[in-house]
């Protein structure tokens, strides 16, 4: 074993595929990865079958980079399987870490999602009212689809996770740091986020002042001053509450941080931290003024919880006796 290269697996659950691209974004360094690891499972890039993994010994994989949230039975099956077969399981990217974009479905129910996709969306053409079934009998036999969950979960809410690598996708530098740590064996204690414990403001070169927000602007509405904190200029920026490590790339080009690196070390609820930080500096004395300022921020729940709803204390929108409580923009899409 000591002469063998450590075995690496990469898997893509409920996510956009950007994390896979990020690995390829290593460019020529991918060769170093290939030199350092034996890639035993990477369905996005090479042909592997689940049965190949099932055939492995428990713990045979040294490291598994698992990206994507868990939103159906197939995601969960692979999560359990790879956990069983891997010594080190890394939640790779924001979806596996906090739920991210797929996790925003937690502002809705499974029924809401299916109704929208198969009936209500303007681009839907489904005259027969077909909806996906977990199993269906056809002349050739039984067909199966993975069950679609009501609640999107993070990887750690399904199986124990050793390390978290945040980012949408993780920056090349973050991936390198993780790879180097694994190769050198200099890993932080299990359960850690591999990264720094300051926020994006620390890496952002914009000048910061005492803040008073009178209204919010969407990026197309103003040309921000290139040197001053975007939040002070009324552009939503989650950098105040988001773990650094990305080099503050978005704010540097005039676009407020979206929050993809998730909460800072020790924070349980990313959205609540953004919310309390921003709410603290609204320039309002009355409830009406607060309302007026918040009216300039469309979909506040989506802004605050964009990358970390399933991984937050909230986890999902509440359900009380079947009565749906509208949350932010969610109310707009509420089926009649």
């Amino acid at each position: 074993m000591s002469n063998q290269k450590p075995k690496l697996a990469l898997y893509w659950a409920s996510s956009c595929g950007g994390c896979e691209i990020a690995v390829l974004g290593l460019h020529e360094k991918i060769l170093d990865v290939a030199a350092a690891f034996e890639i035993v499972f990477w369905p996005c890039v090479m042909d592997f079958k689940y049965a190949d993994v099932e055939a492995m010994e428990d713990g045979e994989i040294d490291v598994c980079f698992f990206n994507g949230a868990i939103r159906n039975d197939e995601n969960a099956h692979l999560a359990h399987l790879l956990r069983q077969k891997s010594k080190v399981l890394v939640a790779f990217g924001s979806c596996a870490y906090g739920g991210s974009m797929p996790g925003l479905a937690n502002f809705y129910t499974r029924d809401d999602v299916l109704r929208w996709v198969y009936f209500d969306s303007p681009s839907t053409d489904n005259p027969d009212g077909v909806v996906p079934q977990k199993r269906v009998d056809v002349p050739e036999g039984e067909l199966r689809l993975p069950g679609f969950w009501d609640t999107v979960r993070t990887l750690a809410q399904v199986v124990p996770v050793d390390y978290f690598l945040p980012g949408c996708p993780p920056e090349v530098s973050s991936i390198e740091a993780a790879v180097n740590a694994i190769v050198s064996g200099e890993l932080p204690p299990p359960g850690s986020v591999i990264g720094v414990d300051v926020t994006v403001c620390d890496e952002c070169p914009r000048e910061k002042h005492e803040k008073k927000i009178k209204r919010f602007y969407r990026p197309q509405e103003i040309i921000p001053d290139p040197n001053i904190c975007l939040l002070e200029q009324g552009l939503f920026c989650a950098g105040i509450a988001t773990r650094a490590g990305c080099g503050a790339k978005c704010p540097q080009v005039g676009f407020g941080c979206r929050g993809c690196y998730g909460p800072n070390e020790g924070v349980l609820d990313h959205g609540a931290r953004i919310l309390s930080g921003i709410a603290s500096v609204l320039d309002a004395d009355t409830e009406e003024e607060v309302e007026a300022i918040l009216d300039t921020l469309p979909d506040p729940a989506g802004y605050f919880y964009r990358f970390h709803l399933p991984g937050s204390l909230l986890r999902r929108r509440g359900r009380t006796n079947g009565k749906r409580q509208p949350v932010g923009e969610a109310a707009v899409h509420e089926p009649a």
Partner: protein
Amino acid sequence: MSEPRVGVYVCHCGHNIAGTVDVQHVAEWAMGLPNVVIARDNKFMCASTGQEQVEEDIKQFELTHVVVASCSPHMHEKTFRNACARAGLNPYLFEMANIREHASWVHPNDREGATNKAKALVSAAVHRVVHQQPLEPMKVDIRPETLVVGGGIAGIQAALEIADAGYHVYLVEREPSIGGHMAMFDKTFPTLDCAACILTPKMFDVGGHPNITLLTYSEVEKVDGYVGNFQVRVRKKARMVDESLCTGCGTCWEKCPIKVVDTVWEAGLGYRKAIYRPFPQAVPKYPVIDIENCTYFKTGKCRMCEKVCPTNAINYEMQDEIIDLEVGNIILATGYKLFDARRIPQYGYGRLENVFTSLEFERLTNASGPTEGKIVLRDGETTPQTVAIVHCVGSRDRNYNTHCSAICCMSSLKFAHLVMEKTGAKVYNFYIDMRPLHKGYEEFYHRIMEEGATFIRGKVSEITDVPRTPEEEDKLIVVCEDTLLGRQRRVPVDMVILAAGLEPQADAQEVAHMFGVGCGETGFFIERHPKLDPVATMTEGVFIAGACQGAKDIPDSVAQGAAAAARVLGTINQRQVTLEPIRASIDEERCSGCRICNNLCPYNAIDFIEEKGVSRVNPALCKGCGTCVAACPSQVITGAHFTFEQIMAEIDGIMIDVLSDRPVVEAV
């Protein structure tokens, strides 16, 4: 660190808790909580035996943390912290679960529910306490100067007590003269001595006291700092009269051509000039120009006062002066506002001309008032033959103020006496209950009855000038149900005096906010404890005295003024004050310098360190309110004694189902 060892003590509080909560069961159950090595119930934890039990157990069981489940921490947190300290345990390793106010008293008819709630509260405290850290209180020096806000009798008394003890006082008064409401009164009950005769010597003492800086016509604009070291900004409004030159001779206001209705000192019954001294015994003696009404300030012409002033003291260019003070303690004695009787339209004040308010009557009967003490109707000449005095106007009435204004019974009796003495008129008192509570008051009540005043028990429903019988022609008719006779009565009179109640000052909320004190349901400032700490507030170093704390008469106001002064002198003599170590701190290594917290601190305790790009909390200014802790988006501000771990542990502790001992919320 070795395993924590927690002691839990569940108090019966006599029947207060044990009457509802099964305290014995709670104590037995608590034995099963994590880290608990001893749990007991006790009849009175605050008694010396209860405290000694804690001390013995700390030694015998080597307790590392202590939980007492009893009353509010406001009552006895200090008691048990001290008990822990005596046994050598840092007092901040103690936690209190409030199972009286939060369980037994609010669920008196639900023994099972209250017991379960008490268990949850105990569980929360046990889970929390093991995360608590030893803390050391901070000592700061106390400045010996004191600020007294309000120059009524309570403020005057407080200022004199402190100044006589040898410490400097800044007395700030909004009006041009000190004296407050008392200076407007004629006689004082129950002794009937002249208000001016007993008040003005004190006013002159204040005016000439070497230890008192008197700032009249001035208002506090801003207060920063903390006990021992307050920074106060005062705006001294421009009098337009140079106090260093003015002799108070009075030529200016004699010659001033503009007459203005005096709504403050004459209650709207008399006039003053545009340059005026509120009343003859005013302290200080200098006049002030009312620039709203002064012809020169309105048109640029006149300058009469400047022409006649023998000492060239008039200065139209004078600007407001900003004075920054540093004081160790503050006494608020901002007084009261009279209930506006117009709010009760059926009593006719403002519509029926011979309906007067109590303050108007004080001015009528005052020798220095507009009628030179003659009690006459609004026409200025007719002496009334019959006078009705209506008690409880705007007081003890859920439509206006629910509280008793405390002074109206006695001032009404005083009015009855003065009317009978000066006019011989027949006097009717309409009262709900007579409450002559203090020393000599009951005797005064009997004296007035013997003098011939009539007392009718019943709340007045209406005062009207519409007659039903020939006797009621040209009279005011007071309509009420006489609850002793059990029938409706209509009493025709010439004059009605409405004993209007006492209300908080119109700006009491703003003043409270500025000084960091609270206002209660009735709007008066809240004392630290209604019985045992009536002049202190929840803000260390800020005291309250007189009617700003609640309606009260002169003797009570004087007593509170003196009491507040005694409290201030006590802290001055300690020279140092111990501050709670519960305050925020910023992990500078992890602060990203976003500056969200910078302008949130109500005590201005947060500075931004430009060269390091981080924010920092000044521990002497921080009061541990937690605003910045909650706001910090990167969660690197920690509130000592309210750390993230402590609060989450407390929530975990309270979120157990006490019936199954399992968490209420299962993981998703």
